[in-house]
């Protein structure tokens, strides 16, 4: 079995209620594939944080999960405003979220650091006015 499995999702922007649906689906798929629960949890948390970010900061995007024999890769791509200073954004507590987002239970500036914590590799490329692409891997 050398073919990778690929799951692909459109993540709708500005629809906070449905945000996270892709992550819930991925979690279900990984369970069905019989992965270890700790691996599933790490992938789920990282993807969910990234998915929420795409919805609240970037107006949606595309999420792709690739399951290979060595790793599970999560690719999140949006055409949002981009991140000006990635190093700053990675710091715990840094957030530009609005009060509305905060009243919904998010916007503590914990998402990006939490994505890093739960994955083995994480790469962010972002261009102002063009969008953001995040690639994370959890090694198996």
């Amino acid at each position, binding site marked *: 079995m050398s073919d990778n499995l690929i799951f692909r999702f459109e993540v709708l922007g500005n629809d*906070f*209620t*449905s*945000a*996270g*649906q892709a*992550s*819930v689906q991925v*979690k279900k798929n990984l369970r069905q594939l019989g992965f270890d*629960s700790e691996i599933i*949890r790490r992938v*789920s*948390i990282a993807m*969910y*944080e990234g998915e*929420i970010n795409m919805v609240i900061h970037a107006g949606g995007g595309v999420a792709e999960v690739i399951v290979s024999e060595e790793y599970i890769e999560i690719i999140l791509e949006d055409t949002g405003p981009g991140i000006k200073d990635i190093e700053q954004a990675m710091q715990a507590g840094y957030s530009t979220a609005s009060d509305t987002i905060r009243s*919904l*239970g*998010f*916007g*503590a*500036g*914990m*998402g990006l*650091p*939490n994505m890093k*914590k739960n994955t083995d590799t994480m790469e962010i490329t972002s261009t102002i006015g063009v969008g953001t692409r995040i690639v994370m891997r959890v090694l198996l």
Partner: protein
Amino acid sequence: MKISKMQELLEAKVLCGEEFLGRHVYSACGCDLMSDVLAFAKDQAVLLTGLVNTQVVRTALMMDMNCIVFVRSKKPGDDIIKLAEEHELVILSTDKPLYVSCGLLYTNGLAGSKEVKK
């Protein structure tokens, strides 16, 4: 602690997952900030919160929690109940505030985060 015992202590209504009240849970966290739950919770099975939206359910799902307690008489909508039912979560609703609810469970033996004996 069995979820049914939690229900009794909190004098809570069961909004869904009646058939899972016999499940045992070993720790809980009380929080209105989902960012913090995602970043800091570990192995807690129960989330007590005053925040009501679908992301509370998805956050609980991502963290492998299996029971949500909405405090201070918060009424979740049908979309929340439906999502929880689909994923076999128990939802309880209590009139008590967050602080009191957490205190009741804690003093009756339900641990917080780093205290769970394995």
